[in-house]
């Protein structure tokens, strides 16, 4: 087992609220890792700290053998961590294809003068990026809407597009923040198949999800957060039977 990402003692405080307390976890290369917990447990905060949107007070992330920088989201993307958002955040006025092409930003090199003079390598890169973006739309199954402005896509397709955009940054770790939120049963089944394909193609997946059934069926290992603390980290079968987890979800009386 090769560790891809290791979080070491992450602390994050917002004023008087301790959002994350000493959270440590490790994600192995090639697995689907679930992060669950009741509302307000700190899952999304953990995501935001990981992706560089917030700076933790203490702790560090080690990714693929080296420490991650703080507070510079674009550098973290360059290192190979991509994320999606709980509330979909697409570039609304751009088409589906262009959204994915924006995702290629860090993996392309065209500079200002190359663009102004339309140098040959820039034109070639533009063609490749377009092609690759279209392939990714096909990969998530929405290539029909390549030229549709993204704000006009259906909810499920917007979710897929966000995943395609994240994949366009060519990540080693794909962090999905509640991808199944608001999806119906069919859409969730499709999503599940998609996440499995992504893993199969060599991308490690970190999944925050409320849909416990989805997480337990899909993930290789699961960590549970409650009030900003990790209460358990193990394979789904064990986690399901853990007393602390049942208490966190159902309240003390059931434990």
């Amino acid at each position, binding site marked *: 087992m090769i560790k891809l990402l290791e979080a070491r003692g992450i602390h994050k405080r917002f004023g008087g609220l301790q959002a994350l307390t000493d959270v440590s976890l490790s994600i192995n290369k090639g697995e689907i890792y679930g992060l669950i917990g009741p509302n307000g447990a700190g899952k999304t905060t953990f995501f935001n700290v990981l992706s560089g949107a917030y700076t933790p007070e203490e702790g560090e992330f080690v990714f693929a053998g080296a420490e991650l920088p703080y507070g510079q989201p674009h550098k973290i993307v360059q290192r190979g961590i991509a994320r999606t958002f709980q509330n979909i*955040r697409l570039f609304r*006025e*751009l088409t589906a294809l262009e959204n994915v092409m924006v995702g290629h*930003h860090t993996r392309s090199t065209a500079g*200002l003068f190359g663009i102004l003079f*339309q140098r040959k390598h820039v034109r070639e890169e533009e063609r490749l990026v377009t092609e690759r973006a279209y392939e990714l739309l096909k990969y998530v199954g929405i290539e029909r809407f390549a030229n549709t402005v993204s704000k006009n896509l259906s909810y499920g397709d917007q979710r897929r597009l966000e995943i395609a955009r994240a994949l366009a940054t060519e990540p080693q770790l794909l962090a999905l923040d509640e991808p199944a939120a608001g999806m119906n049963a069919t859409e969730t089944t499709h999503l599940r198949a998609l996440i499995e394909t992504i893993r199969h193609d060599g991308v490690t997946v970190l999944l925050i999800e409320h849909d416990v059934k989805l997480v337990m069926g899909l993930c290789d290992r699961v960590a549970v957060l409650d009030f900003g603390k990790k209460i358990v980290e193990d394979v789904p079968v064990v986690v399901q039977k853990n007393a602390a987890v049942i208490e966190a979800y159902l309240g003390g009386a059931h434990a």
Partner: protein
Amino acid sequence: MEELARIVPYFGTHNPKVARAIVIAIMLCAPVAALGVGPAWVRILDFALLYVMLAVGLNLVVGFAGLLDLGYIAFYAVGAYTWAFLASPHFGVHLPFWVVLPLGAGFAALAGVILGFPVLRLRGDYLAIVTLGFGEIVRIFMNNLNHPINITNGPQGINMLDSLHIFGWDISRKIVISDDFSITSLLLYYYVFLAFVVLSVILVKRMQVSRIGRAWAAIRDDDLAAKAVGINLRNCKLLAFAMGATFGGVAGGLFGAFQGFVSPESFSLMESIIVLAMVVFGGMGNIGGVIIGALILSWLPEVLRSYAVPMQTALFGHVLLDPEILRMLVYALALIFMMLLRPAGLIPAHSRYSKPELVLGKRIDVSGGGVQA
């Protein structure tokens, strides 16, 4: 170009080639037609082209990158004063245009970066206020830098700027072909400005359909998501300010050469607002719309100026409303009706930031309906 061609009635949708030919023909013949009415109208056309250049440059900042800039005219001023310093008797320096124009553009870009740094974290209204302040600072500098050392000659402005010499040929002098046929300098300036405008539009379009243009659009639509896909917000915003300013600087230099005189009062806040109004009126983010907006809003006041007074004297016997007041009224009405009837501008942006046909060939329906079966 395509955007302009598409709005030609009938041909725009039926025969793009003809539409394009019509646009080019209008561009080439407009000054000759205007000359038929009177040389003043050619002069107005020349100014209209400068405004087009300004509007295209501002559109890059406001329309593409979504950074509301109310001090854009400052870059115009930087370009114009660069010309005044380096090509006039004021300092006794007379450099050729191919040195002064790029320098003016460079200084303007530098000013853009200087403005850009402090406003990186600002958005919307706050950004507008700071940029507005920046525009005023530049103007006040121009106004007061005549003491203790006279740099800008203060409110009097700088006079007798060199005109545009292209390879030793002074285009402010008319070409005499025969005794009763000559080409006026106004006409020559028109074609020179047209060349600059066409070049600007080509460059802006290239930026639009590129990695940089898409990054700008991403920042405009959602800066948090833009960060999350790895866009360096700071660099991209600074680049937008600098590139927008560059076009302002070039337009400023041309303005100085054309006018032969610069003074701080040409660069008031009102001018910034007028250029912004052109962008909004025409359709933010759509180059074709912005060009049309700039043309209409720079023509309208002149039409008023020449017809309002005679019309009022004919109707009422005396002038009720000064054309200058009417101008503001018409601007205001135009913008209000715009907001009510076409909130996205005269030609709403169908701006594309990619060329899907590169991959998909003809399978794709470019209108946005998805791939055809």
